[in-house]
């Protein structure tokens, strides 16, 4: 699990540090840097192979502009503390392990303990932003899809693979069961053949066979095809597939998991994500614009990070517990005032602007 991420000079993240928990919630106005934080993590993933890894490996990391610094701390058996100031002018960098600080130059770095754990963590990391519109039309099948892509546009191929492969059938059954638990009116998933059309072939040039997605209501004996289902229901199905896929990400990045979902059902979705983090040992970082989601973090203020931008456009991040509640409580005690009451209605406190993270 990632314990601490410090980022300097990546887009609006001039100098931010997040002490992460198992589940993390990022809140703040639009364009405050939440997505940039996700992109920074993706950037590490995309360039992981170029990052210093062994004595034989040269540093070939390339990016124009300011040097980018990442500091990542994990809690694996061999704790890793790596600070990598990428300075392309000098090709020099610093490696900090648990025991020693090594300065290396010319792109050659020593072995970093714990790197394999970190690599596997990042390898599966994807920012998931399910797009229900991409599920409405039939999708290509027979391509052996086992990993869901970031916008979940290959979900039909994925479900078809899970249904058709005897070793993957349990995954399909699990998704169906979870769906029924959360949306009881649907008790089955249907994946049906549909003829290929010029339009489908244009969108999916490699596709040979196509299928459409539907959800079954056995009581009514009706299959509701994707174009008849609500955006929220499709989004929810996509979320279930992401977390039940055979090799789910160890670090799950979710943008606005509440999008298009009824307020009462939001609680189920978020509880589902909480359960997932516990049962499958997945670390979750998600963003939200919903006070209903924020309310659900009233018992874990240490998991809430509030993003704001200053007048120069730099992102500042505050941890609700450490940077807001604790200092304000101490100040109130000194002055003899009531301590903060935010946690009684955290979503409302955020919306009104008491904890920051609001637009001007």
């Amino acid at each position, binding site marked *: 699990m990632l314990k601490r991420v410090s980022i300097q000079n990546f887009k609006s993240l001039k100098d931010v540090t997040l002490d992460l928990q198992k589940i993390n919630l990022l809140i703040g106005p639009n364009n405050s840097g939440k997505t940039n934080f996700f992109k920074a993590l993706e950037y590490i993933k995309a360039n992981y192979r170029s990052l210093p890894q062994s004595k034989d490996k040269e540093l070939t990391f390339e990016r124009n502009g300011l040097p980018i610094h990442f500091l990542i701390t994990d809690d694996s058996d061999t704790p890793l503390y790596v600070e990598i100031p990428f300075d392309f002018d000098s090709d020099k960098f610093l490696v900090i392990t648990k025991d020693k600080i090594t300065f290396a130059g010319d792109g050659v770095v020593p072995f970093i303990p714990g790197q394999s754990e970190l690599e596997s963590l990042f390898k599966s990391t994807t920012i998931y932003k399910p797009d229900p519109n991409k599920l409405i039309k039939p999708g290509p099948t027979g391509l052996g899809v086992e990993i869901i892509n970031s916008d979940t546009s290959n979900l039909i191929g994925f479900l078809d693979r899970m249904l058709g492969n005897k070793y993957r059938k349990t995954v399909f059954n699990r998704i169906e069961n979870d769906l029924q638990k959360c949306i009881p009116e649907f008790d089955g998933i249907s994946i049906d053949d549909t003829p290929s059309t010029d339009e489908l072939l244009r969108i999916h040039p490699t596709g040979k066979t196509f299928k459409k997605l539907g959800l079954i209501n056995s009581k009514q004996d009706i299959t509701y095809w994707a174009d008849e289902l609500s955006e929220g229901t499709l989004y929810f199905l996509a979320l279930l597939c992401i977390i039940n896929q055979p090799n789910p990400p160890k670090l799950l990045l979710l943008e606005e998991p509440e999008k298009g979902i009824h307020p009462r059902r939001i609680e189920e979705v978020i509880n589902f994500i909480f359960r997932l983090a516990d049962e499958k040992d997945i670390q979750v970082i998600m963003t939200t614009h919903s006070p209903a989601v924020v309310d659900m973090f009233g018992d874990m203020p240490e998991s809430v990070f509030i993003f704001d931008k200053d007048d120069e456009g730099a992102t500042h991040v505050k941890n609700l517990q450490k940077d807001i509640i604790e200092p*304000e409580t101490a*100040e*109130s005690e000194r*002055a*003899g*005032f*009531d301590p*903060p*009451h*935010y946690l*009684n*209605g955290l979503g*409302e*406190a955020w*919306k*009104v*602007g*008491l904890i*920051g993270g*609001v637009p*001007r």
Partner: protein
Amino acid sequence: MNSILTYGILCEDAAHKNFITRYLQQQYPDQFLESAEFGWRTRASNAKEVGDSLVDAVRLGFTRFQLDVLFVGRDSDATDDKRIQSLIDSLHLKCGYHRPKVVLVVPVQCIEHWLLYLQKHRDNPVSTKNETLELIRRTEAKEMVYGPRKRDPDLIKSNEILDHLDSAWLEQYSKSFNHFHQQVVDFLKQY
């Protein structure tokens, strides 16, 4: 004492904020200045949010934002004196230690009833007819002030009325406005 008093507003909608701002500008020009930061950071959008966030807003207002005075605007949504007093008492209770620096703006029914009185006075300044406009339903009062089918407060209409804000006159006709105005007068006596 500060020569200019810094104030913040926590209220349930734009009509309240506009009324308080215009009242201060007209009655006490150059005496009050709104804290810009408190102004954009702290914004409730309904009565429940005002009530629920009052304790923290008061604490932050007088510590982090260094306000001299906080105006708290909430429609009473009632005509019954007991219910209105009970609302005022509960809001006061939430202000705790800071109560002397908090001014409550709690109109009978809603803020549009104050505007309605002022509108009648503007349209017929010589009339001495003592009408109790507060018995008019809230939706009807809003229509009479803003025009039909207006969902949001029309601040242009409201400002046309507030250009003629005669506090001394309104005090005689509206007990709830008098309660608000007297708090401001008493607050200023401290300085």
